[in-house]
């Protein structure tokens, strides 16, 4: 990731915040500025953490588990 990529991301984020302000609201949560950004970030974290926890605690086995 070079600096230019981060700048593009930042510009897109700002544009999307402006867009959200202008766009018609469909859902109740559309009034929260940057709601989808928050959902994207938190959701991603939740998926990683929950899945990894689930894997490590419950379902991970050695690769030859079924061959023994």
């Amino acid at each position, binding site marked *: 990731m070079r600096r230019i990529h981060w700048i593009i991301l930042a510009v897109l984020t700002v544009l999307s915040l402006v*867009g959200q302000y202008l766009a018609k609201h469909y859902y109740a949560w559309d009034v929260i500025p940057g709601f*989808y950004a928050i959902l994207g970030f938190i959701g*991603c974290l939740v998926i990683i953490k929950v899945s990894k926890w689930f894997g490590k605690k419950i379902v991970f086995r050695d*690769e030859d588990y*079924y061959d023994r």
Partner: protein
Amino acid sequence: MIAEFPPVLIFWLGAVLLPLLPKNVRPWAFLAFPAASLALVLSLPIGTTLTVEFLRFELHVLEVTQLSRVFGIIFSLIGIIAGIYALHVKQTGQQVAALLYGGGALCVTFAGDYLTLFAGWEVMAVASGYLVWARGTGESYAAGIRYFLVHLFGGSLLLAGIAIQVVSTGSILLRPFEYGESIAAWLIIAGVALNTALPPLHAWLADSYHRATITGAVFMSALTTKSAVYVLALLFSGWDILLYMGVMMALYGVVYAVLANDIRQLLAYHIISQVGYMVAGVGIGTTLAINGTAAHAFSHILYKALLFMGAGVVLYTTGKSKLTELGGLYKHQRLTYWLYMIGAFSISGFPLFNGFISKSIIVSAAGKSDYSVAVLLLMLASIGTFLHTGLKLPYWTWHGRDSGVVPAKAPKNMIAAMAVAAFFCVLFGVYPDLLYRQLPHAMNYQPYTLHHLVEAVQLLAFTFIAFWIYRSSLAGEPYVALDTDWFYRAPRDVARAVFVTGVNRVFDACETLAFRIPGVLSRVFTHPAQFLRTMRLPTRDFDPDADRGPLADPLALTLLVIVLVAIWNLWW
């Protein structure tokens, strides 16, 4: 007359003709059959019906509706693309199996009655199972057996439902079920749900797709689950339970995709997640939702085939498919990488790619029907989709740490097939109306609204940021993640003891007994007199000189009897 020809027969005719052709033209000749089928499907007018008498039934072997047409188009189209991808494959068995398989999917799609549907269903199961076996490894052999057994079970559920349905209603025609209307409906939906890979009936998919042949997996990713989605949409539209199950599926696939190490298995888990959207669409059941399901199936087949083709190129050129063994391939495989990324952008719902224009219909339909929680959970699944298919897999395969693996050169036809699929992903993304025109219901839907764009940009950008921060924790891990196939794989030793070792013991015992009986009898008859006297096995053979009694006694007895009889006759 030519207009009323079932497309399935073109595929199955191909399966018969192909082995008769010279070996080196077979891969090219293969392409002719899906191409002819595509032309035929496009030319069949809506409402075309063809009936055939069979036993006492009138089979509707061809029924063209707006819904069956859109599935027929994509099944034929993907046959061409996957055929191009397999041009370098010389095994006729695989080509024939692929034609039978594609034909089965079309048979199901255009079936108007249960018997035709079931025939296509079972041909699909057998032909696709062969594509697992054709890989030729011990692992794929075992996975193929499990695949057959599970599909045999699913087929039996379906057949049981069909039998009850046909006997109780007297009709073999397919017609939509009311929610929970009969035991037949529940059996049929269970059989169909198994093929849509609905958890807990899904484990066959994630168990077999990454063990199938490289080209076979492309066909498999397109046909089995989507033909089942078609049947769900046809028969079970509006069944509430499917909405809940669909959303659960969408998230289930995401969780397991985090845990997957094999790249093709990761993609297989993501099929489950994507099919979840379609199942949810069927559950919502409005015309918009059914349109969304059909559109998403259409888009999904294109980009998922593209993704499988990309992963297949990696496996073909490196012989490896585990994230723990891959990394740093980008400098050798720029074109493959970018074509794969077009598939990844599509599945993740980037604007201008075809996933965006189809997934958003289902999410909008959920919103319009006031399923707000479903909307949020489907968005969460979207995040997961981008996270694994668009970030984790490509990052740890083509970037990440350099594994030092130097891939061989990929056959040109594999790359060409990826390019064709990528072209369609972009084409339908840029011109959604090309697809929308084919959908079952008329609709006035605009995917490129400011609201949708804002949603997509924010979700994707911040998913990326979270991934970038935590990317190291998403590297592959050398484990298998247990899934519901554990329930039939772990008790292997018990099952073997009951069904194999136990049965063998009984047979062995019977066999030993069967051989002992003539042995004993032959010993007994060496000297029956001694046996009858002692009730023990004779100690020696019968000896006429020693064992035969004096002749006088029996002679005297005979004489006596004759005299007695004579007297009797004379006297009375």
